[in-house]
């Protein structure tokens, strides 16, 4: 049981990373002048869409906690709608936090918001997939010693490392080699590069 879980976990993470790499490679075939640094807004959109899709597909295939006792259509629809609302709320929440951290209020709104979106795809979407729209469960997972399964553990590690990656990604801002909100990319890279070891760690420690 545990071995199969670990294997599945490893595959899901590999797929996630693969999807990010795909989001860099594929658009360059279809779109003119695509590069991460210059058209970073497009890339942010594409990347978040890819990651969301992969997460949803994986969730449907793997079904880590097959505990859906009631499976009426209406229940599923409300659940799905709730998830959407939660996702949007998390986007706005992150946006507000970025502004509080000093992002400009009016100019560069789009950059800031897209950055909020991508951060929520990395953190909120997996949580929604795994735990559903259940705040109490979230709080349980993200407090000390609240983890019950290996899936939750990996979730905890990836999410927290995403946050820390984003947080650390702000450090190069005062260095005077680029414009501030181009930083979104820097942050993104940082964020991913901190996710990967986090995942590996998560799989190894089990």
């Amino acid at each position, binding site marked *: 049981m545990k071995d199969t879980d670990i294997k599945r976990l490893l595959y899901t993470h590999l797929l996630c990373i693969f999807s990010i790499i795909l989001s860099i490679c594929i658009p360059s075939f279809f779109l003119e002048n695509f590069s991460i640094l210059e058209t970073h807004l497009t890339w942010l959109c594409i990347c978040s869409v890819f990651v969301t899709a992969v997460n949803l597909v994986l969730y449907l295939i793997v079904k880590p906690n097959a505990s859906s006792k009631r499976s009426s259509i209406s229940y599923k629809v409300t659940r799905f709608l709730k998830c959407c609302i939660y996702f949007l709320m998390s986007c706005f929440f992150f946006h507000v*936090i970025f502004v*509080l*951290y*000093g992002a400009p209020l009016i100019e560069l709104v789009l950059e800031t918001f897209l950055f909020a979106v991508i951060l929520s795809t990395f953190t909120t979407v997996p949580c929604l997939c795994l735990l559903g729209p259940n705040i109490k469960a979230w*709080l349980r997972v993200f407090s000390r010693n609240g983890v019950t399964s290996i899936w939750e553990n990996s979730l905890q590690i990836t999410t927290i490392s995403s946050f820390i990656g984003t947080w650390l990604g702000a*450090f190069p801002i*005062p260095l*005077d080699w680029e414009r501030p909100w181009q930083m979104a990319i820097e942050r993104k890279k940082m964020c991913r590069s901190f996710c990967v070891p986090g995942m590996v760690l998560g799989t190894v420690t089990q």
Partner: protein
Amino acid sequence: MRLGSGAFAACCVVIEVLGVALFLRGFFPAPVRSSSRAEQRAEPAAPEPSAGASSNWTKLPPPLFKKVVIMLIDGLRDDFVFGSKGVKFMPYTTYLVEKGASHSFVAEAKLPTVTMPRIKALMTGSLPGFIDVVRNLNSPELLEDNVITQAKAAGKRIIFYGDETWVKLFPKHFVEYDGTTSFFVSDYTEVDDNVTRHLDKVLKRGDWDMLILHYLGLDHIGHVSGPSSPLIGHKLREMDSILMKIHTSLLSEERETLVPNLLVLCGDHGMSETGGHGASSMEELNTALILISSAFERKPGDIRRPKHVQQTDLAATLAIGLGLPIPGNSVGSLLFPTVEGRPVREQLRFLHLNAVQLSKLLQENVPSYEKEPGFEQFKMSERLHGNWIRLYLEENNSEVLFNLGAKVRRQYLDALRTLSLSLSRQVAQYDIYSMLVGTVVVLEVLSLLLLSIPEALSNKAELEVPLWSPVFSLLFYLTLLVLSALHVIVCTSAESSCYFCGLSWLTAGGVMVLVSALLCAVVSALAKTFGDGKFLSKNPAHPKPRWSELDVLILLGTMGHVLSLGASSFIEEEHQTWYFLINTLCLALCHEIYRNCLLRDDSEPQQCPHVEEEFIRTAAALQDRSTGCDTLEPHGVSRSLTSLDTLRGYEKWMVLASPWVILTCCRLLRSLNQTGVQWAHRPDLGHWLTSSDHKAELSVLTALSLIVIFALVQRKCSLTSKVALALGLLGVYCYRAAIGNVLFPWQRDSKDISKGVIEARFVHVFVLGILFTGTKDLLKSQVIATDVTIKTVGLWEIYSGLVLLAALLFRPHNLPVLVFSLLIQTIMTKFIWKPLRHDAAEITIMHYWFGQAFFYFQGNSNNIATVDISAGFVGLDTYIEVPAVFLTAFATFAGPVLWASHLVSFLSSETSSGSALSHACFCYALICSFPVSAYIILVTSLRYHLFIWSVFSPKLLYEGMHILITAAICVFFTAMDQTNTKS
């Protein structure tokens, strides 16, 4: 000897201040000096070099110009004259630059770009050291050799009108002068009218040889409203008309006497994009320099771009133009275009004089001067010059003579440039020995503090300081012996001057005793720690202390901040680091609060096994605490059991909302003052408020802020101080109305602007009164020792006195900073620290972080230019050094000081345990001295960095000042702690 940890920390910080002072003295080098003083320079001028045949020209050449007028405009940066502004507002000057008989240059000022060092540089041609900034306001007489002294010795009559600094620098040199004071920055018309009103009279009279005018208005406009303000245009137009008046008068006089005159238009420093100066941006360094004289020939249609030269070049040029010896310390080279019109023999003579002076300076300052390329070039050109003279005296073959002359001239110019460059580099020489001693002291103190953490933060808050045993130990005497031997060796062999060697033997000996005693103390503390460590490791049952997320954040944040000091960009933008850290701190607090609140709601009804488990752990934690070995107590879990239960509905919501309120406050403050370097030019609320169009808004904001301040502060005061506070705040508004920042509702027109001395003194009286009441209460609580409340009230009164003083001294738009600071303190006290029960160490560090952040919220930065000097003159008629320095320091460091004093009053009123204050004092000392020590080492290793003077040195001065203030705060802490233990 047993010492409380507070007293111990205070002693450590005081010793550290000594170490830092010694380091600073060694770090800021003494400037290049010629050994002969001005008075002794009676030696004859260097004769013309000659090969074989003796030259008959040994005296100084005669002056080139009869009269010289120097028109110095403070803050005249190059594009005000040569750029689009110049074309628009200074038509006459532009005409002169483009078509008239003039030479225009862009003169590069050296750091620091502050008025007094720049005047010195212009008149002596030397480079004043960085430390001259500190003495900027209180300028003593200039004793160095300079153009003015030489001119006076040569019997020239000099008249001066303008900035008082000149009168202080040259007290007995002017036959007639009128100094204007540069203290009221908001006045930019009268300062200049006071100069111009003498002009007509003086220009008609012919009884002077040198006229110096120093106009301050432009710089004042820059300080108040920046370089893009419309006022700049008016001022430039006024200056242009003055220049025209002087020039026409000089020309009409020349028509009678037929001897050319010289008019010099120059700036002392530039103006940054925000309007300040002091740092090293291109806008601050580049100043305009225009020499106008009918002696200069100009072919029609000859368009030249202004050449880049050094500001120090003016001194040599002026000396030659007036027929005076070049000042001994001058590192500048002659501006050659000015003598281009003279015969070749004179040109070469001038160049030779300048080269001789520079090479002499080089010989005195560089031991291996013969190997310098400039010196070799000079010797070669001197030989060639001799050949040329011989040729000149013997025959008159014009072709050969002309070619050789051109060659000699070129060689001389090269030699001058190289010499001047290598001399300018000489300024950066460090006194390594003093720096080393200072660093050793600081590091020893820091390691002593670090080693005593476990003991000092234990419950008893006392520690055994091994004071007497080391003094009699062998190690102590050995170290002392080795140090003295080293001292003797270093001081006898050193070539350059060394401050520490210059100290008297007794003082040096005292420092050495201190160093070795500290070393012994460190060693014994180390031994004790290792002994304890062994003991602890024998006891495997000892549980590991658990660190909460907050502790990890605090530790990482401190480490990260210290590491970031190594990069110049991070120093320039240090405010970003602090804003980032306090935001993160707020989010971490938010996380803690939410976890405590929501999870408790969740688990209480069902009593899940989790909680029981937690109970067990808490018990373990409590045991753990009782052993008193841990520095940071485990909390989080134990805390959640007792806190937050007692809160009712409304309060609970306030607790949940409080971090967000604080975050919003911080965001608002952040947009009030843009500071730093990269984004300093961005529009911010502060500039919007101070612009003259928004006076009404500023008035409303000021009134509102004062009311909120009163509402927040008066809660805990006694009745007398409440009344005094209200009157004082009223006085603050009156003061601001008097100096013209704000309006009274009934006062429509902005009438006469006064200095507001009476109003400011009125407020000062109340500040002193409140402080006195507070002190009286404290003394009473010590004598009577009935209850704690008197003491709490006393401390709060002292705190409110400081708040009132800050309200008086802050810049007009900065009152919201004070309001938000008080608001955040109130919210934190009520809804975060009290319910969550943080321990003293955490609260101290949070206070420190917020204090640092508020330092930058005030608009300060790690740059000398942002210090608000005008705060030093509030309520003073004239410059009095001690109060001015004190007021400026308080206004600059108001953020940290207010937070620290809040910490004292909070801890003494809230906490039950008696050791909280000494814990806090210890933590404060530690967390302040950690960055200072790290920074000293960093600066030592980066001392040849490109930005050492522009970025690292100002930060070093700030850090030095900060540690001094920390020492004062720690002493205050200890005093409070002593009264506490006595009562």
